[in-house]
């Protein structure tokens, strides 16, 4: 039932893109949810900005190439300029490089984080149950530790993380980035947008899949009717 409401909301949001930014937070939902949901490219671009500014400092995304960003709605020139601003060990990045890995090898990452290596974010939204909501909850559920809990050194209290003790410090703050489309960059909004971006990063072809799928299912329903009619006709002729 909830899914139906989300789908209806998604459809309504398709018709009113401007109002989207304020409505997605209470309760948190995303335009890509549901059978007919498509990615909100504006949210993906905002999420990418948050990712580049905040997350990319510690997290890798080795499966993503800069050229893939045309799926978010950037033009080739924009992506080329974006990539040119990224300093790789071999020089400025080009479209065909993978996203910059903040650490040259896993050992360096482990040394920098005392063993708690930040996971690669390319598939994180798909590799957790209800990944989009999980990422959003994780980023917004930092709290003060209860009095009876003694935190491990270098850990923070987070109600959404399994075990409640996470080595990542709270990454998002209000106004940490300035959105080009003028949306208010509250910490919750940033969390929602980066969750949308990471969902896209994990499954960039979701929109194509739903579009082709709708056509395929409709065609197959049509074909089923014809096949049944033909079979009955042939069998009537046996007598």
């Amino acid at each position, binding site marked *: 039932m909830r899914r139906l409401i989300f789908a209806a909301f998604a459809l309504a949001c398709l018709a009113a893109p401007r109002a989207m930014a304020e409505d997605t937070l209470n309760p948190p939902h995303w335009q890509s949810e549901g059978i007919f949901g498509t990615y909100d490219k504006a949210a993906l671009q905002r999420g990418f900005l948050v990712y580049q500014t905040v997350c990319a400092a510690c997290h890798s995304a*080795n499966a993503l190439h800069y050229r893939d960003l045309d799926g978010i709605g950037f033009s080739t020139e924009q992506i080329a300029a974006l990539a040119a601003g990224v300093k790789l060990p071999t020089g400025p990045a080009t479209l065909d490089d993978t996203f910059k890995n903040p650490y040259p090898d896993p050992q360096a990452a482990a040394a920098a984080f005392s063993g708690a290596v930040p996971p690669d974010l390319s*598939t994180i939204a798909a590799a957790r149950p209800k990944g989009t909501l999980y990422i959003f909850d994780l980023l917004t559920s930092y709290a003060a530790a209860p009095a009876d809990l003694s935190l491990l050194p270098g850990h923070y209290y987070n109600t959404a993380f399994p075990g409640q003790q996470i080595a990542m410090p709270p990454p998002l703050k209000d106004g940490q980035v300035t959105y080009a489309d003028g949306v208010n960059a509250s910490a919750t909004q940033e969390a929602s947008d980066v969750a949308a971006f990471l969902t896209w990063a994990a499954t960039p072809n979701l929109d194509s899949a739903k579009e082709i799928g709708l056509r395929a299912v409709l065609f197959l329903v049509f074909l089923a009717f014809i096949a049944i009619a033909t079979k009955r006709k042939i069998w009537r002729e046996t007598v």
Partner: protein
Amino acid sequence: MSSLSKPWLHIRLPVLESFRSYLNAPVLPREKKYLASLPVLIAGALSFQLLSGLVLSLFYNPADAFNSIQFIDRSVNYGWLIHAFHETGATMMFGAVYLGLLRSLWLRNYKAPGELVWFLSLAKFLLLLLIGYLGYVLADGAVSFWSLANAIAGAFSLSGVPGGIGVWFFGGPDGAGTLPRLAVFHAVLAVAILGILLLHQAARRGMEPTVARGVGLHPYYTSQIFVAFVVYALIFAVLVFFAPHFGENPLNRGPANPLVLPVTVTAPWYLLPLSNAGHVFAGVWGSLFAVVARIALLAALPWLDRSAPGNPPGFLHKFLVFVLALDVILICIWAVQAPSFIGGILLAFFTAYFFFHFLVLLPLTTLLEAR
């Protein structure tokens, strides 16, 4: 399509004549149900798996498995779709296989003279399970990495002939050579199973009662099989495009991490009925026993079923088969939950009922019905 002179191709390829008579000979009875098309659907599904697997194998690199699959998903034209075809195709194919098994149990198709057909079905079932498991570990995800590591560790800890076979199959501890080897096995076994399919179909055709005023395979049963195929394709399309990772542990979509063990290392859903869910049987020998005992029971069905030949299955038999199916489904559901006290008890009960059905209930009830 009758002409006095034989077509050009038939003169030069005489086997086409026998194939055409196989298709058109009016010897089949008129009342076959739609579910009888299942073996043909499974054969079609297997061919589809072979095609999609072939395309995937052009880009899959066992030395860097997870990243090569990401490459397929992101950079190969329609790679994501071919990958989804292959994954969902496996789920659909096993769904059809289990449905076919259930149907054979329901209708008592394993009774004489159908034992060879039954054994070939079981051989097909086992090979498909092995191929499916290999495909699962080839993905090198966070969970399947550990499933493989456990399997190899288990194989090396067994002694005697089973240990020897296990060690021979994996060829060494989990290392750089394992996935390339398993990738070849996965492909070769998939092609070999086509041979078993042909044999199975030939044996099944031998079981068909020929009828004097019957109907030909074409166009009567080809049209029926086509309807079944379209329904199958419809379900397949819904899954492939809207839920391609149905039945999969989502954690497996992240890369393998030798330093982090998942809370539950699950097998793909189609292996769960044979798994040692809940560790009802202790240790590695117990897990081996769980698989072997279940297959042995299925293979012994023609003799466990004490009904008279030609006796149609009564209501009691059908009810028991239905309860058995429920039992297996419940085992699968509880096998993937996090371990718990009540879960352990339930799994022990369900497993015991499975053995109870084959060893006690089935012989007794069929004897009763035979009177």
